């Protein structure tokens, strides 16, 4: 190594990022019943337990359903906003875009508390509707910013040409604009889904008896019992995430997806 300091710092960084994940996987396969390390024997019993544990399965279905709905809703209202910002002739476009990115700056826990107080307690909304409103609001910045990035790259002259050749605005949108937007919509959708499924701070105060999200259910479980079932559940989540990452990498490249939102 020509740069010993760089190399040492890089090794420390990667150890901190990766080693805990390896430990989760290793613990999941233990035959013992504690989080002791090294694990006592190898077995799949904790995977069996995790897959048979009703609260986790129910919460996983709830989390996925919530993520799909919130993402679809955010794209449905967010894509028109992107079109207005990039193609429309609005005064104060920067201000409008800033407004739609604002959910990224306010701490999620604070938004969760706000929705809990104002919608669940104040307006007597049920916890699923409140979660849906919150998650959709949180996904809006992704829908607006990420789809906007692919729209900004496309030449507006294409749409003008379609209109000039006699296409109706709707036809021009579906045949010209939408195909241009597709990679952006895909990236935004993926990013939103992943963010929504993994979310803790926003969902934390919005849990109900009938509708609970998976990460919060797992947190509660960890706090009560100290056994490897959560490690097994975590390993399953890890496997699913790897599959999604590979799909993301093959289609748009996930460095692109995750690099875009914060710039």
């Amino acid at each position, binding site marked *: 190594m020509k740069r010993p300091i760089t190399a040492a710092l890089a090794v420390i960084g*990667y150890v901190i990022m990766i080693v805990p994940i390896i430990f989760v996987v290793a613990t999941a396969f233990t035959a013992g019943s504690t989080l002791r390390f090294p694990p006592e024997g190898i077995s799949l019993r904790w995977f069996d337990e995790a897959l048979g544990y009703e609260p986790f399965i129910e919460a996983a279905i709830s989390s996925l359903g919530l993520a799909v709905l919130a993402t679809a809703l955010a794209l449905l209202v967010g894509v028109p906003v992107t079109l207005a910002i990039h193609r429309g002739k609005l005064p104060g476009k920067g201000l409008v875009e800033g407004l739609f990115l604002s959910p990224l*700056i*306010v*701490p999620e826990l604070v938004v969760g508390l706000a929705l809990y107080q104002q919608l669940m307690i104040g307006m007597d909304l049920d916890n699923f509707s409140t979660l849906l409103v919150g998650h959709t609001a949180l996904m809006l910045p992704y829908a607006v910013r990420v789809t906007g990035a692919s729209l900004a790259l496309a030449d507006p002259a294409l749409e003008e040409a379609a209109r000039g050749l006699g296409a109706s605005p709707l036809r021009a949108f579906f045949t010209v604009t939408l195909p241009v937007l597709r990679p952006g919509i895909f990236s935004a959708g993926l990013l939103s889904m992943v963010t929504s499924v993994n979310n803790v701070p926003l969902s934390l105060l919005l849990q109900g008896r009938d509708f609970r999200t998976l990460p919060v259910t797992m947190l509660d479980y960890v706090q009560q019992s100290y056994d490897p079932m959560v490690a097994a559940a*975590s390993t399953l989540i890890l496997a699913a995430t790897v599959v999604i*990452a590979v799909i993301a990498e093959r289609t748009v490249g996930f*460095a692109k997806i995750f690099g875009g939102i914060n710039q």
Partner: protein
Amino acid sequence: MVRLLEPVPQPVPSKRTPPRKDADISRKSAFLLVPGLVLLVAGFLIPSAAMLFAPPDVPASEIFARLGEMLTDPYDLEVIGRTVGLALAVTIICVVLGFPIAYWLARSPSRWSGVFLAVAIFPLMLSNVVRTFGWLVILGSKGALGQLLVQLGIVEVAPQLLYTKLAIILGLTQLFLPLAIISCYSAVAQVDPGLDDASRGLGGSRIRTMWSIVIPLTMPGIVVAATLVFAGSVTAYTTPYLLGGSSQRMLSTQLFNYASTTVDWASASATALIMTVLVFLISGLSSLIGRKGATS
């Protein structure tokens, strides 16, 4: 409406649409904003503002009274100080570790650097609960690190590692290092490698090249990285909850406690206000530095 009455300014040759149609488009595009705006205002802006200034059954004056108490009470000040202190420590560690990794990933000709970049970014997609849980296995009372220290004969009894500041720092560093790497990476990738070579060719040492060429040119990216990590650390919940517990309360775990366990709205709102102000301060400071950098 005002726009309709004004003569629309026309850079004549490039304009293809007549002015009447132009105004039409403006009205239509405003219409496209409506569903999004309704959701944003009703589902985010109004509740957030109402929570910070008018929670149910609590007069706003009480929140500010509680805020005043918090800023003088030793216990509350300790929580605020711990939050800011830990966030600062994590920010420094993430930049110090993240920048060299980003530099190496951006400049290494090896085809492995693509794999390492993917490995660094992948954790961003993975649940924070899953990532943080690993530290329980490592730092727990029967965890790997304690056992290792005992077996190596460094200590006799495994030390308390969980529910300490160290545990929170490790957990938050793991969480936010990928963000720091991405921000620094895109900054380094934009700097022409020829500049490094030129500096080296002119006799600059490796360290001198780093300090006077690479770091100044990538400063905006480093500032973005630091801002994201700091704001993230101040607001993170899962990590301080699992690794800090009740003995190392941070603003986030304290906020949850006020809102859920003690149902003390005034304290919850005051804590939320402190947290939000901290995040806004750091964001404001960062864009100020960014603007200064851009003009100089």
